């Protein structure tokens, strides 16, 4: 092969390398910036924090939930606890069903099988998906579990477990 032909082959080879590099960079950038910014984990944690602050403070169950003068649970709060805790779960935009589920369980601190009170709100269909966490299940829901102790009726100590579930898959996962 003469020298001119060799030079031509080299320039074609360089051109192919440039195209491959440019294509690779374009693909990587698209994958990186095209993937939505998944904030559901933060959202689920914020939701459980807000509920915890609403139902208990300074180690005591809130007086919104217990009438300490009469020593009774307040049914009105239990039935509408999302309203009382300033939570809005109304579906918006493309969704017809709410994208949230919250569940609050009060157990006897000395007998954690003894469920004393249960409150829940939102779409309970999302709850079983919490068991399917990890790789390959990104398109399901994100769950947050929080538990703490608080003093309540007749100075009883309760273990309070809060489960929050956020779906919003379409906006957070590709």
């Amino acid at each position, binding site marked *: 092969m003469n020298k001119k032909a060799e030079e031509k082959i080299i320039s074609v080879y360089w051109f192919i390398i440039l195209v491959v590099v*440019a294509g690779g960079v374009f693909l990587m950038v698209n994958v990186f910036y095209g993937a939505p910014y998944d*904030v559901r984990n933060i*959202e689920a944690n914020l939701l459980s924090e807000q509920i915890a602050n609403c139902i208990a403070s300074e180690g005591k169950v809130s007086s919104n939930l217990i009438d300490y003068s009469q020593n009774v649970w307040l049914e009105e709060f239990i039935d509408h606890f999302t309203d009382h805790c300033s*939570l*809005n779960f*109304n579906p918006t*935009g493309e969704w017809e069903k709410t994208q949230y589920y919250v569940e609050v369980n009060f157990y006897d601190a000395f007998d954690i099988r003894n469920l004393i009170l249960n409150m829940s709100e939102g779409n309970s269909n999302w709850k079983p998906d919490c068991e399917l966490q990890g790789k390959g299940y990104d398109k399901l829901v994100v769950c947050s579990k929080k538990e703490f102790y608080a003093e309540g009726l007749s100075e009883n100590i309760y273990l309070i477990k809060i489960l929050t579930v956020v779906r*919003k898959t379409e906006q957070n996962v590709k």
Partner: protein
Amino acid sequence: MRNKKGDILMENLIFIILNLVFLGILVLFLLNQGNGAIFLERTSAKQISLLIDASPPNSVLKLNFEKPMEIAKDNGIAMEDIIKIDNEKNVVTISLKEKSSYSYHFFNDVEVDSYPNSIYYIITIEEKI
């Protein structure tokens, strides 16, 4: 007639310049992607919605919005129209160019107001009546 050494130098010089131009275009493309209107609309809407969720009533948030404001200005969007908050549906909508916007829902049921102030956006959070 030019000598051979001169030809080789010229060819190498053109090759290096073309490579630099190519790398420059790639770097510009990368920087443009990170500061693109669509990307900023999405991230800003989500970040503001999380800030609202994390804020108790009677809070005032001061957000540095210099970059989104520059992009909005270049695209002919008024500063007052960058952030829209629907207090009925609890939705934050960010728009940085015409016919483009991104909305994200926040669960904290509060009354939110927003307005621009130089390079900042002020967000006030009050209890819903």
